């Protein structure tokens, strides 16, 4: 059974290494500042006994006041999981650092969220629309689109 790690424990571990990165904590998820997302992701991937080696999914959710980007992480080695979130308060120009250099699987997932939700992933090697054509106006999965 995949063990969902407690958000509190992970948050304290993140807090030790990167102070002031954690914004809020829930049972199974940790929300961090978007500026520190890359450092946090690197920490989660490389810390022994955490070793989140597998990125399951990236989801962008538009909450109208802000945009949330959700990372579902799993460690195949230890069989545990964590939900890592980050928040972009500026809805007109949401920017999140790219995690492609940590998990190659983020390549298409980030391009998809860029295309449909409009989150810009800074540092992505090839950030362009994946489903819709270049020149398409808007991002359909924003809640105020249509």
């Amino acid at each position, binding site marked *: 059974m995949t063990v969902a790690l407690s958000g509190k424990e992970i948050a304290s571990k993140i807090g030790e290494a990167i102070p002031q990165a954690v914004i809020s904590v829930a049972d199974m998820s940790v929300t961090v500042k978007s500026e520190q997302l890359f450092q946090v992701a690197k920490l989660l991937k490389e810390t022994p006994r955490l070793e989140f080696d597998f990125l*399951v*999914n990236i*989801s962008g*959710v538009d909450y109208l006041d802000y945009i949330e980007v959700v990372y579902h992480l799993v460690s195949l080695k230890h069989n545990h999981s964590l939900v890592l979130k980050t928040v972009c308060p500026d809805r007109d120009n949401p920017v999140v650092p790219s995690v492609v250099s940590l*998990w190659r*699987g983020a390549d298409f997932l980030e391009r998809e969220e860029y295309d*449909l939700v409009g989150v810009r992933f800074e540092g992505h090697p090839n950030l362009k629309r994946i*489903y819709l054509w270049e020149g398409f106006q808007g991002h359909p*999965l924003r809640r105020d689109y249509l």
Partner: protein
Amino acid sequence: MVLKAEPMLISMGPHHPSTHGVFRMRLVLDGEVIIDAEPMVGYLHRGIEKLAETRTYTQVIPLTDRLDYLGSMTNNWAYVLAVEKLASIKVPERAEYLRVIMGELMRISSHLMAVGFLGNELGCTFTPLLYMFREREKIMDFFEMVCGQRLTYNYMRIGGLSHDIPEEFLPAVKKFVAEMPHYIDEYEQLLSENEIFLARTKGVGILPQELAISSSVTGPVLRASGMRWDLRKADPYSIYDRFEFDIPTGKVSDVYDRYLVRIQEMRQSVRILEQAIKQLPPGEARAKVPLLLRPPVGEAYAHIEAPKGELGFYLVSDGSIAPYRCRIRAPSFTNITALRDMLIGWKIADAVVIFGSIDIVLGEVDR
């Protein structure tokens, strides 16, 4: 004399018999050898995630049929599992068993197509495939018995199934389960030691394990790379912890291993089917769930081991009758992340085989 050749750019697809739908590969060739490749998707994008936001939770189920249309049952299952997790709904025992039966039949059917079309791609056109269509036809008949549909089943409901199975279903499935191992032997006789098949698949399109893990590859492709990771064992959903089965893995991580893993997985599915049919309890096939379900505010991520890999739904509820956000984690989509690495260095004829060995369905890639 040295011939000076410039790299040639070839657009393979969107309409190409080997791509199983509308998929385009932008290949850069040096002579016949691929030196760069880029998958281009989006030709079948229907905006299912957006459509889901305008429908009630139950009305989303038929949309999920249109994701991986060779695995509609498992798509239904992953979605209803996410809703059940979100709304904390308990599913009756009988429904769980029937879901496992449907899911494993679906896996066999999907793997049959994967292996059969791989044969097509190699040039043994249609002979192996038609053998496999023979058994897939039977599975489709079973699904027609339970829900009247042969491709887009819309059979699972939040809290169970749309109806219980008809009388004639179990005897027919029992007969099929008894026969299936012999049929699988027959496919193996045709392909597993066929000289041409071996020459075209052994050592071709190797995907090293580390790269597979880092590229979020799941399903038979990941297992063929030697990683023993199957959500039915790693994170047993439904009632998979009650069945005995093995997880086949590959050693060389090539096209042949992916073929072999699928063949062995079919055998394991038959094992699960035998046990599930034996243990199937009487009772209700559906829990009482309001038609206009309003799950509490919150979010849930549920995943299953679909035939092609990890299929997950991330649902966010705002307490209304429609999902606020319905994010689909499609295995076919993430599995092509590593396609470029598998293709580089191989000839264009191998590209078709390597691509076929990943087994993607464009309905799921583009959503």
